[in-house]
C-alpha cells in the first residue's frame, strides 16, 4: 500500500514536470491557428513557417555560433585549468579551484549584473565578444568538474612511462593524456554548448542591441502573442538540448569501451 502511494506520487511529479513539455511538442503539430486542444489536425505547417522566419533563423545562427565558440573556449580553458590543478603544484590551488567552480554557486542574475556593472565601470560597451565571455564564465565550471574527475583517474605513471620512452611532455600530453581524457573533454564541451544554447538570464543582460539568441527571440515573441510557431521552435530546442547530450554520452561510451 505504502509503495503504491509512493509510486503514484512519483508518477504525478513526473507528469507535472513533463506534461507541459509534451503539450508543447503535441501542439507544434497542430494544424489550427490557435494553440489549444482539441487539435484540429496534424501538420508541419508551423515548422515550415519557422524555417521561413528570418528573425528566428538569424537567432538560430547566433545561438549556434555562440554555443560552438563557448564550447571551444570553455573546453580549452577547462582542460588547461584541470591539468594545472591536478598535475602541477599550483600555489593556492584550493582557492583557484573554488573560484573557478564558484559561478555555479552564484545565482546567474547576480553574475550577469556583476559582469555588466564591471564592464560599465571599465567603459566597455556590450558586444558579441562580451556575451561570449559571459557564457564562457558560467560554462567553465562544468567543463572543469568533468575533466578534473577524469584526469584524477588517469594514473601518473602512465605519463611517466611515456616520458621514459622518449616522449617530451608535450608529446606525452597529445599521445597519452588527451586521448585518455577525451570522453570527459567531449562531455564537457557538450555541456558547455547546451548550457550556452538555452541560456536566457545572462544573455538578456549581456547581448548587444539587435542581437538575439533563440531563447531571447522566443522571449520577445511571447511578449506579443503566443504563436504556434513558438511551439514548433520549442520542439526543435528540446530535440537539440536533449538529443545532443544523449548522442554525446553514446559516443563517450563507445570511446571508453575501447580503452576501459
Amino acid at each position, binding site marked *: 500500500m505504502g509503495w503504491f502511494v509512493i509510486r503514484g506520487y512519483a508518477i504525478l511529479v513526473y507528469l507535472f514536470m513533463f506534461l507541459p513539455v509534451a503539450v508543447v511538442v503535441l501542439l507544434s503539430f497542430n494544424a489550427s491557428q490557435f494553440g489549444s486542444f482539441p487539435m484540429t489536425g496534424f501538420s508541419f505547417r508551423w515548422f515550415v513557417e519557422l524555417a521561413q522566419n528570418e528573425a528566428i533563423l538569424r537567432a538560430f545562427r547566433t545561438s549556434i555560433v555562440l554555443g560552438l565558440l563557448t564550447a571551444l573556449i570553455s573546453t580549452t580553458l577547462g582542460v588547461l585549468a584541470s591539468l594545472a590543478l591536478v598535475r602541477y603544484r599550483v600555489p593556492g590551488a584550493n582557492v583557484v579551484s573554488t573560484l573557478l567552480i564558484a559561478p555555479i554557486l552564484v545565482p546567474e542574475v547576480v553574475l550577469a549584473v556583476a559582469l555588466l556593472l564591471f564592464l560599465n565601470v571599465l567603459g566597455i560597451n556590450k558586444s558579441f565578444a562580451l556575451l561570449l565571455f559571459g557564457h564562457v564564465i558560467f560554462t567553465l565550471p562544468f567543463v572543469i568538474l568533468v575533466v578534473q574527475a577524469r584526469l584524477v583517474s588517469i594514473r601518473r*605513471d602512465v605519463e*611517466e*612511462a611515456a616520458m*621514459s*620512452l*622518449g616522449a617530451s611532455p608535450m608529446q*606525452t600530453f597529445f599521445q597519452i593524456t588527451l586521448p585518455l581524457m577525451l570522453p570527459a573533454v567531449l562531455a564537457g564541451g557538450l555541456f558547455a554548448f547546451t548550457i550556452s544554447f538555452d541560456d536566457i538570464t545572462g544573455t538578456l543582460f549581456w547581448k548587444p542591441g539587435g542581437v538575439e539568441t533563440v531563447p531571447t527571440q522566443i522571449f520577445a515573441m511571447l511578449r506579443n502573442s503566443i504563436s504556434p510557431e513558438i511551439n514548433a521552435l520549442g520542439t526543435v530546442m528540446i530535440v537539440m538540448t536533449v538529443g545532443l547530450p544523449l548522442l554525446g554520452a553514446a559516443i563517450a561510451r563507445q570511446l571508453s569501451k575501447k580503452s576501459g
Partner: protein
Amino acid sequence: MSSVTLRNVVKRFHKFTAVHKTSIEIPDGAFVTLLGPSGCGKTTNLRMIAGLLDPSEGEILIGGKRVNDVPIHKRNLGIVFQNYALFPHKTVAENVAFGLKYRDVPKSEIAGRVQKALDLVQLPHVGERYPKALSGGQQQRIALARAIVIEPDVLLLDEPLSALDANLREDMRVELKRIQDQIGVTTVFVTHDQSEALAMSDSIVVMSAGRVEQMGAPEEVYNNPASEFVANFLGASNMLPAACTATGAEGATLDVAPFGSVAVPAEKAQRLSGPGPAQLVLRAEKLAVLPEAEAPPGLLTAPARVETVDYQGQTVRYFLRLGDRQLQAINMIDERPFEQGAPVRIGFRPKDASALPTETK
C-alpha cells in the same frame, strides 16, 4: 649500456629528508637491488636516477656523464612500474612500439623489433590485443618488453613483481633474471622483498630511513650483516649481548652467556674495533634445535625451552625461551617437530655467527 653513479646525493621534500647523503656505484651490466622497507628512500633514489625527481644535492651520472639537468625523455632509460603503466588506449604492439617512434627507427624495422621483444618475454601472439585483455603477469611482461625494446642504457624496475600473485611472482622472478642475463643491461631493481633481492641481484643495497645500511653481494649481506637492521631485515636473526675479549687476525673472541666463549671468524668480526661490549648475530636458520640430551661436538649449546611452534611442512620455526630472552630458530625437519613446552638443547657453530658493535640509540 652504462654504469650508474650516485655521488653524495641528498633529496629533501620541504623539511623532510627522504635520502641522506648517499653514494652508490652501479657497474656496467650489473643487476643491483635497492632493498628496504617502505619509506626508506629506495624509490626516491630510483626516481632520481630516472629523472622523475631532481636531487637536492649531489650528482647522478649515467655512463660517466652527469645527467642532473637531462630531462627524463632524453635519458634513454627503460622503466617498469609496479602497476604496469601500459597505455590502455593502445594495443600491445603499439605499446611496445611507442618508444621506437622517438628514436628514428625506420618504419620497416619497427614491426620486427616489436616482435623480437614480444618473443623475448614469451608472448609472441598478443600484439593485436588491448592491455586489459591480458592477465597481470602478461601485462607486466609487456611492460618489460616495452622498456627493453628501446635498448635502454639502464633498466629501472620499480617493485615490478609486487602486484602479482605469489606463484606468478616467483615465475616472473626467474623470467626477469633470464631476460636481464640475455640482454645484459645495467639494471636497478627496487623491492621490499628480501627473497627477490637475494635471488636476483649481483649486489644488494640495503636502505633504511634514507640511509644506506650495507652494500654488497647477496651472500655477503646475508651472512655478514653490517648492522642490526640488516640482520633483521634479511630474514630473522637473534641478537645476543656479548663482551668482546680480544680481536685479532684470526678473529674475535666473544663472551656470550650462556654459551661461553665464541670464536667469530675475522671476516665476520671486522666491524669490532677492539675489546668491549658487542653483539653476537645468529641467523635463525643457523640455530639448531636438538633433543635435550644431545650435545654434538663442534656446537656451542645451551638448554632452552620451546615456546611456540610454527610448522611449515618442510621447515619449522621455533620460538624458544633462553633465560629472559626469546630466540628464533628455523630448522629443516624430516619427521615431527618438537612439542610446545618441550625442553630442548639449542646450538650453533661459531663460524656461523657474526659480531657487531653494540648500537647506541
